[in-house]
C-alpha cells in the first residue's frame, strides 16, 4: 500500500511521489510516522527533517524549517515555505551559519534569531549527513 506525497512550497510543488511511509516531527507531539490509511490529520511541523520512505525502500530526506502536514484520504501534503532536499544542502554554508549563530548566542543568550538559525543549521547538517 502506498499513498501520494506532496511537498508544497509557496512557489511550487517541490516534490511529488508515492510513499509507503512518511516520518515527521510535530510541535509538541514528537516524531510521528504516517502510513496509508492514517486518520485525517493536521499538524504543525517542528524544525526538523521529514523522511519519505519510497515503495522501493529508499528514503528521501528533507530539512523542513516550518510548516504543516495534512493527511487526508490517500494523500499527504507537507506545506512549508522553507524546505530543502538533502542533496541541495550546502554543508559549508550550514556549518558557517551554525558557527555564526553559536557565537551570537554566546554573546547574547536570549537572541531568538540566533537560536532559530542554530536549530535550522543543525537540521540542515543532520539531514545532509554531516554532523557538527
Amino acid at each position, binding site marked *: 500500500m502506498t499513498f501520494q506525497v506532496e511537498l508544497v512550497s509557496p*512557489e511550487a*510543488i517541490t516534490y511529488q511521489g508515492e510513499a509507503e511511509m512518511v516520518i515527521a516531527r510535530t510541535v509538541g507531539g514528537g516524531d510521528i510516522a504516517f502510513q496509508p490509511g492514517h486518520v*485525517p490529520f493536521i499538524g504543525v511541523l517542528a524544525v526538523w527533517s521529514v523522511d519519505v520512505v519510497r515503495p522501493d525502500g529508499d528514503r528521501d530526506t528533507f530539512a523542513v524549517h516550518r510548516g504543516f502536514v*495534512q493527511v487526508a*484520504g490517500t494523500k499527504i501534503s507537507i506545506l512549508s*515555505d522553507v524546505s530543502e532536499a538533502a542533496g541541495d544542502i550546502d554543508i559549508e554554508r550550514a556549518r558557517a551559519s551554525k558557527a555564526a549563530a553559536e557565537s551570537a548566542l554566546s554573546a547574547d543568550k536570549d537572541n531568538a534569531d540566533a537560536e532559530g538559525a542554530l536549530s535550522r543549521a543543525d537540521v540542515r547538517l543532520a539531514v545532509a549527513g554531516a554532523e557538527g
Partner: protein
Amino acid sequence: MAGGRERVLRRRIGSVQNTKKITRAMELIAATRVVKAQQRARAARPYAEQITSVIENLAAGGAEVDHPLLRQAEKVERVGVIVISSDRGLAGPYNSTVIKAAERQVQNARSEGADYSLIVIGKKASDYFAFRKYAIDSFTMGISDNPTYEDARRIADEVSALFSEGSIDRVELVYTEFISLGRQKVATRRFLPLESTETIAAEAGDDAGLSGAFEFEPSPEAVLESLLPRYVEARLFGALLDSAASEHASRQRAMKAATDNAEELITKLSREMNQARQDAITTEIMEIVGGAEAMGSGNESEEPAPVGAQN
C-alpha cells in the same frame, strides 16, 4: 532648398524606425516574461489552495481562536492601503488604474473620518503619491516584476505587525488581477482583519472540505494560530504574482500598439518623403529645362548642360 524637406522627412523616418525597433524588442521581452510570470502564478496556486483547505478543515473541526489578525476594530481610526504597482513605465494604463483605485481607497478612509497609511510596492505608485504629498509609510521597490515569497513574507509581516499592535485597524489590498492574457482587472480586497475561518471556508466553497474528523497536533487552536500568518503571506504573494503577470501583459499590449503605430507612421512619412523627392526632382528638371532654353536662345552651338551625364 528643394532637398531640405526630403532630408527632414528622411531623418524622422530614421528616428521612428529606431523607436519601432525598441518597442518591438520590449514587446518580445514582455511576451516571454508574461509566460514565465503566468507559470509562476500557476505553480504557486497549490500552496494557497492547500492552506485554504487546512483552514476549511479547521473550521469544520470548530476551531475558533482570538487571534490578533482576526481583530475587528470597533472604530476604524486608520486604514492601511497596500498598493502594488510596477517600477517601470511603458505598460499602458497598468499603473495609472491601480494607483487611481488606491487613491480612491485613501479618500474613502478620509471620508469615514479615518487616517490612512500607505504601503507602497513599486516605484510608479511611490512617485505618484510622493508628488501629491501623501504620507508613504512603507515603500518597497525592485520586486514587482519578479516577486519572491521572501518579499511577500517581509511585507506581510510588517503589515501584520502594524495591524496586531493596533496602529492600523483595517487593510485594503489594491492590485491587478490577472484573468487572461487579454484581460486584467484592478481588484481591491480586504486584506485584514481576516474573515473568520468559517467565512474563508465558505468563500473557497469547493469540495476541499473533506469533513472527516481530523486530528490536530498540538491542538486546533495552535494550528490555526501558526496558520493564519502563513495564509496572509500566501495571499499577498498571490497578489504580487498576479500583478507581475498583469504588468508584463499590459506592457506587451502597449508595446504592440506602439510598434503598430510606428509602422503606420513610417508608411505615412515615406509617402510624404517620396512625394517631396518627386517634387524636388520635377522642380530641378524644370529649372534645367528653363535654363537650357534661355541659354539655347542666346547661343545655339553650346552643348546643353550635362543633364544626361548626371542621370
